């Protein structure tokens, strides 16, 4: 019983810890986040990247998404494009 518990605990801790290990650089690897602002942990999408990603997902079509889901993605694309328009619009 104890043995099983210990094994489960070990498996659980590894599963949780694994992503953290993966993010760390080995001694031989370059830190691309510090060096080139690429692949940083807290990286988020720019509005243009978001538009591109939404566009790409919509193009996958009904093989991947249901009709409702495509409609939802299209709504989000429209929203992102409207936001970009607002950000770049002239006027007051």
């Amino acid at each position, binding site marked *: 019983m104890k043995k099983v518990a210990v094994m489960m605990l070990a498996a659980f801790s590894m599963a949780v810890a694994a992503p953290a290990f993966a993010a760390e650089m080995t001694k031989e690897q370059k830190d691309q986040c510090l060096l080139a602002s690429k692949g940083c942990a807290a990286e*988020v999408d720019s509005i243009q990247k978001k538009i591109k990603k939404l566009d790409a997902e919509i193009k996958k079509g009904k093989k991947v998404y249901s009709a409702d889901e495509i409609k939802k993605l299209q709504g989000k694309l429209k929203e992102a494009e409207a936001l970009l328009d607002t950000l770049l*619009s*002239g006027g007051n």
Partner: protein
Amino acid sequence: MKFNKKMVVLAAAGALSVATALPAMALENEFHGSYGFKGFLSNFDRAGANNMLSSATTMLKKENQANNYFEQRARLTYIAKANDDLKMVTTFELDTRFGGITDGKYNLSSDAGGLDADGINLETKNVYIDFNIKPVNFKVGIQGYTDKLKGVFAGGADLPGIMTTTKLDALTLGMGYFRFDEAQKTGAVTGRLGGAATDLFALDATYAVSKDVKAGLSYYFLADYKDKDKLLHTLGLNGEAKVGAVTVSGFAAIQAGHQKNAQIVTGTKGNTNFHGFAANVAAKMAVGPGTARTAFLYLSGDDKKDNQQNAWHPLAGLTGSVSMYNEGATMMLVRSSGATGMGNSDDYVRRTLSDVALYTLGYNAKLTPKAYADANVGVAWAAKNSAAPVDKATTKPNATNYIGTEIDVETGYKVFDNLTAKLQLGYLLLGGYYKGAAAGNPTGQAQDPENPYTARVQLTYAF
């Protein structure tokens, strides 16, 4: 055995708390923004917000020295998204002219354009919540609103209110209420709040007849009880259809209403009645490596002979402007968002969208994935020549309506995915409307004002 049971209960409780806590914790923070830098060399643009060539102070002389200046505008947007059906959107704006501004809204500080910067210049653009109670979308707060008349009544206007959008199959129904002026705003007036306010009620119904054909009906009611009771109804029809490679769109709108105890003709009594009219038709199609486009806009004017106001009345009135006509894309003739771009300079012959007929013809070419070039010609007439400048030779207002012809070119290059460098050049050949009307000349010494021109370099970054 007893111990094990406790463990099971604890584990279950723990799992449950994690499961229930997760959705509440999932808040998506989105940051976006934009930055625009503009450099000007122009005898026309002067970092203001004027209806140019309309008065002695905005009229050009026979010979003018060019203004040269630089300005920047940044916008910062933060969106707090609780889930797909609820978010808060905030947008702030920071404007600066190099050299600084210390008057107007900056009179307690500056716009940070001076030595050592230190200006107080953070402006609120939008603050609202956006949520869905299906099938209705609600936007509550200070938000952007553009009418379905291509913005000639209210275009890119930011105003506080409540907007609802309901989607029922092919029908999209927008209903909004906005309050954007109030007699009590300075605190100097005593009375009840809301008793003398300016409100806008908006109704936009759009019906998708098919995938390629849309038709819409709009009704806007401006109830302005702030100064003198002004009630203005605007009723419009709009449509868009894709026929083969060509997209055709247009609208027509009429206005009716009155303003109590207000007169156009001095020395008369009574009310002013409104009878504005606006119409537009536009077409665009893909040709070669780009898009060819053409459009015609008519916004009625007034003869100023009686108290019937026949001029098209935009939301901000007959001198202000929260209206845009983007189809034209003119840099100097009629206010357009695309030509204005990211900046504070906002000078146009028709900054207030009224009293003009404008025909435009243009081509937007995509030269490479990174480079583009646009060319545009615009010809404008005053709808009525009652406000025509005076010819100093005859001392009478010019009899022609022809304002002029504008030629614009713009080219841009994407330095990065989200940074674009642009060059805009515009030249306006003034028509007979301005004959002999050069500023600074005494009566009898008539000269034509110099033709306006503008050259702008721009850097635009959006993220």
